[in-house]
């Protein structure tokens, strides 16, 4: 039996008066693409930030390949790669320099140059990698960041809204890259998204989440059939209506 890549159990996170997560529990199997789907403020980003070791849970636990995200955070950071929503890159560095800077942190894995070459191929930015990041469009920056997140072949890639704000051309490129890379290298992906089309195209399993709780979990087909919906948007509306 394969080990679970992520195990989240009864996760609660409180910010002042706001309960962002209210007993969230789910598992992500190794090698699958798992999507957290929900409206703004549902708690998707908070859950991803806890798993990425950025913030600590108020209660409950999260484990990545058996490592506790609070207790073993330095070890977790070695095997994950996190792409925040609306993340930026260092504007005064060139694309090459940015990738090299990031790859250097994983030099113990060896082959910094190989990682950068891999990222160059994933990004598809070609000669533009020689230009400074400040000259890039939003789509180009996102492609650079996706390439950065995947080039280290992490055991778990955590992608928060990977195609948020991108036009159709860039969004399709990013989705294709994620799907192909995961199949090729067996990377596990945990992502969040608003885009139901994207979720259906990418994810093996999804969890619909609202007000910090999971409403329903399963493959996109299972979720649709549970609510007798034609698409995930209808299923989501039905799930939130029923609570």
């Amino acid at each position, binding site marked *: 039996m394969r080990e679970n890549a992520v195990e989240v159990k009864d996760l609660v996170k409180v910010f002042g008066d706001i309960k962002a997560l209210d007993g969230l529990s789910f598992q992500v199997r190794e090698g699958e693409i798992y999507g957290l789907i929900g409206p703004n403020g549902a708690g998707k980003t908070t859950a991803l930030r806890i798993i990425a*070791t950025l*913030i*600590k849970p108020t209660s409950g636990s999260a484990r990545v390949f058996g490592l506790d995200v609070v207790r073993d955070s330095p070890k977790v950071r*070695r095997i994950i790669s*996190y792409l925040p929503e609306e993340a930026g890159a260092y504007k*005064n*560095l060139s694309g090459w320099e940015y990738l090299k*800077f990031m790859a250097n942190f994983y030099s113990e894995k060896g082959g910094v140059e190989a990682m950068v070459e891999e990222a160059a191929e994933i990004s598809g930015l070609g000669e533009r990698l020689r230009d400074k990041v400040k000259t890039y469009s939003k789509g180009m920056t996102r492609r650079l960041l996706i390439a950065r997140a995947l080039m280290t072949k992490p055991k778990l890639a955590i992608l928060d809204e990977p195609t948020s704000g991108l036009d159709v051309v860039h969004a399709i490129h990013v989705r294709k890259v994620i799907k192909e890379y995961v199949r090729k290298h067996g990377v596990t992906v945990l992502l969040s998204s608003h885009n139901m089309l994207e979720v259906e195209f990418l994810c093996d399993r999804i969890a619909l989440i609202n007000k910090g709780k999971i409403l329903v979990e399963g493959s996109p087909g299972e979720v649709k059939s549970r609510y007798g919906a034609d698409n995930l948007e209808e299923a989501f509306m039905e799930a939130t209506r029923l609570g």
Partner: protein
Amino acid sequence: MASGLGNIVAKEIKEMFRDPKILLGIVLMPLIIFPVMGAAMNVSQTAVEESMKKVPLALLDLDRGPMAENLILTLRALNVTLVEIEGGNVSEALERLQGSNVTTLVVIPPGFSRNLTSGVRGELEVYSIIEGLSFSEGAKASVATAPIDAYERILVRRTLEEAFPDRPPEVVLDPISLRSIIVFKGKRVEAPPGALMGVFMSQSFGFPMLIMLMLISAMQVAATSISIEKEEKTLETLLTLPVGRLSILTGKLAGSVVVAVAGTLTALIGINYYTTSIFGSVPVEGLDLEALGLVLSSPAYILLGVMMFMTIVSALALAICVAAFSENVRSAQSLVAPLNILIVIPSIILMFADVEILPFPVQVVMYLIPYTHSIIAAKAAFAGDYFIMLRSIAYLSAFTAFILYVTAKIFTTERIIAARVSFRWLKRKRGRS
């Protein structure tokens, strides 16, 4: 971890030196602004001197006597351009000068020659036509004074030669010769006390000014280095990389220190150029500083360097600590700005006084501020007081260690992501009033 730290330091330096605001504002600007200021001052000073040379002097001779004639001849011999006005009275002469480039009128009243030859004071009238309030206008007003003074000295000398033919006029005029000897910490050097005061002034004003200038801009750089990570949304990624948060903090600090040191060096070069171009023409009275023990010894130089380095590190650590609570560059700069008080207050107070003469509660406050120790140590370096220097370095080091510890704590918690300084209560208060 070391490779992570080195990686961050290299990236910080690369990024900062490529940022036009930092490169131009902190590193290159002192090399441009100070020489330009010096050149501007020189140009205006030269222009005033040149304009004074060319300013003609109008002269109305109502005396027509031999001494008046003698005065006119002397002024011509002194290369003064004279415009002699023939006939009329003072009002008519001034009227004639209206609209011309002659702005000074010297009037020799009737009886000038008779008074001088009969042992009574002669009287001259100088009318200055002022059209503006600039320095050059003020200088024009005094254009007649120098040649008239010169003429007066010639008259005195002549009178003394006639009265005391066997003595040099200088001995009659200035019979006592004064030798001024400075005794400083038991060492004697022949020089006027004013010369030593000049050295003390440069220490009292120069070092506080330098430290103030250096820290204020360096703190903004350090605050920007952390807040820009938040503004550009790169910090979250950085914090999930396999690198210790203390390495991130130290890397940022080291990058800022390199920029601050580069900025200080260019500021020193710029200030040096500025001061030499301004005061270069002014003769400095010779003072053997070495004989007075006022030249920095090698240990003092080293300790001064250590102290300056610790001052920079502590200020930058403080700026990074405070900027960790900001949301973006602008809010970071607003948060760091009040810290300037910690630098400005001791700098200004210590320009005019030593800590020991202040009231006790003020002394306590002053000693708590780390930058007081920077200035005290800089002054102590010249006096060769190594104990005070070491004490200052120890305090600055302890302060820096404390700030680094607090900042590292912030970096290791989620406060670095979630911490925000809220001004909402202030807005609410304003809204109510």
